[in-house]
């Protein structure tokens, strides 16, 4: 358990990273600042190429920031070479040593730290057990499956008990069941060991279920940092809302704004007031976002009018696709009850009711 739960493990200050020079210059990170707390399960979430791996490589010390500073427990780590940083990495491509066995791979870090033989053996055995690889301990790593390699990579990085563990999509090659098991196992490990986890994933569901906090990244920038709940329910930008979960977007112009709220005039002529993610000036273009499960379908008039176009049954719930009077598509998700239909039919005229706290106004 952490002694001071809110102390920063890693502070990233105005970090930029530029690859190449001249015309084929790539800005992989653009003025990124974020604090990662001790014993936190921190997730970097974002589409391919947004700079997640680059950020991990800067923390691990394989690359250096073009600008900015990274502090580990309050100290600038720029002068530390990677092998002096109390940070271990589970690489996106595993990077297991092909000329060593599974057990030798896991023992490598401990050997380099000069730990006594018995301790190394005990830790290797414990790690093998943890990732369920006891049977394959003497296999060469080139002779095991992708998922098994991933588990060895995890065990190898955990074995030296680093202060910070960087995990670059460590579960992507596992099948669904093993993946769920490893998610729970990772979360448990993180809680027990007090190691700060920085976890990279494409998978928004994985990010939401595992993280203490999530940073959503896009094109080298961090758009928002917050708890899964904040990210999902109070996205700061349209990109964040779009990337995480399913969302309905309706565009409109701001009629009035203030006190963290804004009133939006939609294309169809309807007016809706909702909380605002940022400050708006009247007449500015803005987007209204409504999660499908936060809207309700009603018989007769709601906040928006439309026609049911499609009903899709998912078992746990039903998605009802509504063509709004303004022409946009709008999805409403209803929880299913046993032996009852959704109560609507295709072609039916309906109203969409958006509760006071169900929507949010976002910058475009």
């Amino acid at each position: 358990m952490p002694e001071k739960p809110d102390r920063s493990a890693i502070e990233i200050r105005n970090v930029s990273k530029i690859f190449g020079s001249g015309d084929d210059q790539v800005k992989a990170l653009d003025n990124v600042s974020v604090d990662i707390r001790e014993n936190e399960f921190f997730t970097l979430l974002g589409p391919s190429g947004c700079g997640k791996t680059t950020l991990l490589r800067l923390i691990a010390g394989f690359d250096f920031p073009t600008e900015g500073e990274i502090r580990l427990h309050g100290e600038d780590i720029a002068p530390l070479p990677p092998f002096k940083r109390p940070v271990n990495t589970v690489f996106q491509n595993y990077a297991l040593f092909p000329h060593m066995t599974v057990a030798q791979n896991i023992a490598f870090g401990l050997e380099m730290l000069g730990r006594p033989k018995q301790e190394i053996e005990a830790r290797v055995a414990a790690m093998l057990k943890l990732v369920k690889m006891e049977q394959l301990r003497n296999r060469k790593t080139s002779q095991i499956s992708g998922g098994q390699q991933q588990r060895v990579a995890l065990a190898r990085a955990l074995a030296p008990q680093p202060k910070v563990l960087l995990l670059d999509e460590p579960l992507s090659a596992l099948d669904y069941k093993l993946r769920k098991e490893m998610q729970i196992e990772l979360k448990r490990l993180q809680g027990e060991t007090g190691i700060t986890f920085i976890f990279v994933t494409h998978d928004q569901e994985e990010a939401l279920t595992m993280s203490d906090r999530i940073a959503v990244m896009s094109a080298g920038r961090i758009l928002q940092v917050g708890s899964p709940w904040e990210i999902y329910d109070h996205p700061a930008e349209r990109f964040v809302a779009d990337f995480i979960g399913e969302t309905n977007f309706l565009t409109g112009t701001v009629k009035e704004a203030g006190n963290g709220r804004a009133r939006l005039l939609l294309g169809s002529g309807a007016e809706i007031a909702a909380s605002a993610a940022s400050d708006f000036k009247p007449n500015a273009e803005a987007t209204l976002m409504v999660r499908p499960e936060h809207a309700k379908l009603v018989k007769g008039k709601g906040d928006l009018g439309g026609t049911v176009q499609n009903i899709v049954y998912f078992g746990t719930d039903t998605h009802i696709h509504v063509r709004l009077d303004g022409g946009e598509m709008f999805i409403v998700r209803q929880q299913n009850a046993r032996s009852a239909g959704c109560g609507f039919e295709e072609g039916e005229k309906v109203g969409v009711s958006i509760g006071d706290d169900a929507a949010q106004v976002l910058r475009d």
Partner: protein
Amino acid sequence: MSSASEVADAAERKDVRGRWLLSLPALLIIGIASVFPLLIVLVYSFLKPGSYGDVVWQFSPDAWVGVLFQRDIFDGTLSIADAHLSIFWRSVRLSLMTTVLALILGFPTAYFIATRPERTRAIWLFLITIPFWTNLLIRTFAIQEVIRNEGVVNGLLMKLGVISSPIQMMFTDFAIMIGMVYVYFPLMVLPLYASMEKLDFRLVEAGYDLYATRLKVLWRIIIPMVKPGIIAGSILVFIPSLGAYVTPRVLGGGRNLMLGNLIELQFGQGRNWPLGAALSITLLVIVMAALLIYVRKASNGGAHHG
């Protein structure tokens, strides 16, 4: 069931026959260009020398005795041929030293090239192979120009006042070794580079990540993984060094003979072709033995270490 397996058997037999036919040209070339000449050498080594070179077609083990022993001119007793043994020993020792020195210099060179951006690698490789485009004799005389008493190195050192009289480098084992390292350097660098180019440098990063210092990464990760290149390069340098002829002749003068010169002597002034043939086969056997020991050791060491 049985008919199916018969068909499979027949197909396999046909397959084997086909493979033999396909490899026939290669076998013929190997036979004519390699086995046949070796047989001639072997046969010659069991004949008597003619007085003006050539051989007399009469069986005699004398040449083989002569490899290791010398017969006293007066009483005909045998004693160990010290001169031959010391030449064997010098050849092996010089070739080993050449191989080690070429490896020590070639490893960082190959690593340097392999870590350059892809565009510039070709240029570096080209520079490494340039000496290959020049005649061996000319290259060797160039070295002579550098290390002889009035040469570049001595001249420079004397001008700087580091030494007052020239250092004798020509006609020493040192000169032969320097010459051979220079001549065979590309043969070390190229296979090393080939295996380093395939090296996954992310594994090097993984090593650093797991607290390995630069030296440990070199020792535990890079060297085991480029071992095939180290083996190939060492073999490619060791073998021609052992049989080198021009370099020891020019840089070692007449006094510092190596196996190649000894063999040449028998076919030239010595007029003892059978002895030359026996020495050639001895050289072949030494090379084979060295290869076998080295490859065995290297692969065992890898398995043990890894």
